[in-house]
């Protein structure tokens, strides 16, 4: 039954598996159980998925209640297509290790960039002084 044709509503997505992207960069995958007028979400059997390069790892989290304003986007997961992925699933420890290495590499490149820039007499404001919302 189409509740509100021609409009965008989450009513249809209840009890379906969803992928939710949050503003802090986290990716959650869970079954959408409940919504309200602010698009606050209740996710059941949630898993936080971390991606590094072509590898990913899932951390089971249980039930998530997400405040609507923190959601960037969400979409229904196609259960058939979920199986045949190019991405390689690894264990949690491995993916966390990969993430740590990636973070270090990023920090290093940032540091070098900042140094090069300082040598040339310019200055780039640091990310934490900017308002990232």
């Amino acid at each position, binding site marked *: 039954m189409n509740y509100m044709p*021609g409009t965008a509503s989450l009513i249809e997505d*209840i009890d379906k598996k969803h992928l939710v992207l949050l503003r802090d960069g986290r990716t959650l995958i869970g079954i959408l159980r409940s919504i309200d*007028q602010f698009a606050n979400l209740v996710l059941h059997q949630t898993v936080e998925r971390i991606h590094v390069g072509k590898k990913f790892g899932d951390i089971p989290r249980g039930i998530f209640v997400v405040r609507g304003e923190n959601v960037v986007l969400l979409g229904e997961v196609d259960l058939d297509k979920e199986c045949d992925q190019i991405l390689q699933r690894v264990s949690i420890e491995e993916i966390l290790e990969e993430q740590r290495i990636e973070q270090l590499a990023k920090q290093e490149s940032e540091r070098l960039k900042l140094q090069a820039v300082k040598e040339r007499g310019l200055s780039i404001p640091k990310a934490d002084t900017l308002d990232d919302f």
Partner: protein
Amino acid sequence: MSEKEKEWVIRLQMIQLQSENPHLDDYYYQEYYKRMEAKLAEEEKRGEWAKRETPKLTTPYVIKSESYTPVVHIEGSLGQVAVSTCFSPRRAINAVRTHSPDEDVKDSRQPRMEVYIEKLFSQLLEVEEAARKKGFVRVEEKGGLMEEMEKKVKQIYSLIRHANLHESSEEFLPCLLVSKGKRLLARLLPFLSHDAALHALTMVTTHLPTLMSKDTDEALPVLYAPLRDVISALSFSQLIGVLKDFTIVVPESSETILTLACQNEFGLSLLYVLLSQGERLLSSNVPMEPNIGDFETWTDTVFQVAQQLSHASLVEPLFLPSNLLTLFCRYLDKRTVHQLKSNMESASGYLAVAS
């Protein structure tokens, strides 16, 4: 989620779609729907596809409760809970307006007139909107529309006249002293009946010295165009009546309005338009029914004006009608005309065309 919960969320979202004027409030959705339906109708006409029933969004009629209980007292609880809905947010301050009778009268007078004029302006905007609608409204509706317009115009006119309720002798003036009031009158004039417009013109000429001296914003020229149109519809006797006002001596300065007008571009332009109209009426072959003494007043005024114009230093008028010199040639000798011509030309930089 239970059905009840789903219903609740849907109902809440539907409330936001309620509106008296969907075409204004929800423009994009309405447009989208109109186009979709047009497209489907097109397809159906071509008979290519079977008609697909588009589900229509039916907004349930939810009665908006007019009453609003700002504070709800729950049984057995301490204190009060502030209740807010999306139409009436939480009342944070208990601010009640008390009217103190001994307010400073002078302070409240100035903004009051401007607020008054603003209200009249919004009525005028409705009249102008109705005038625009007249072009493409159905014949049956036209009569009702015209009546509405006339009623509003009359109301605005009488309200401008008696703006100052205490001193009813000062018609128009309080309103006209405010520059927006001048603009209001300028936009109202095209809608007024001939008699009402004539009355307005007479008022402007009698109060001309005050208006000219107090015109700090230089808003008077805005009245020029509509008054010029009014003057071009005047009969000879009406014109004479208005011109007579120019020869009145202003008590404070012991000069005639005429002299003062020459120093003000609006006053001077108004004078020129009046003379030009007289000249046009006289030189055309339309039979006039002048009152007794009209011609005398006319010639007297023309002489007086000529005298004034040739000796006084003139300011540049807003517009110099081309038939003025023709008029002067008719009544005056060549020398005076020549003097007049050079004086007028030096003021305006235009060449006053002679016959």
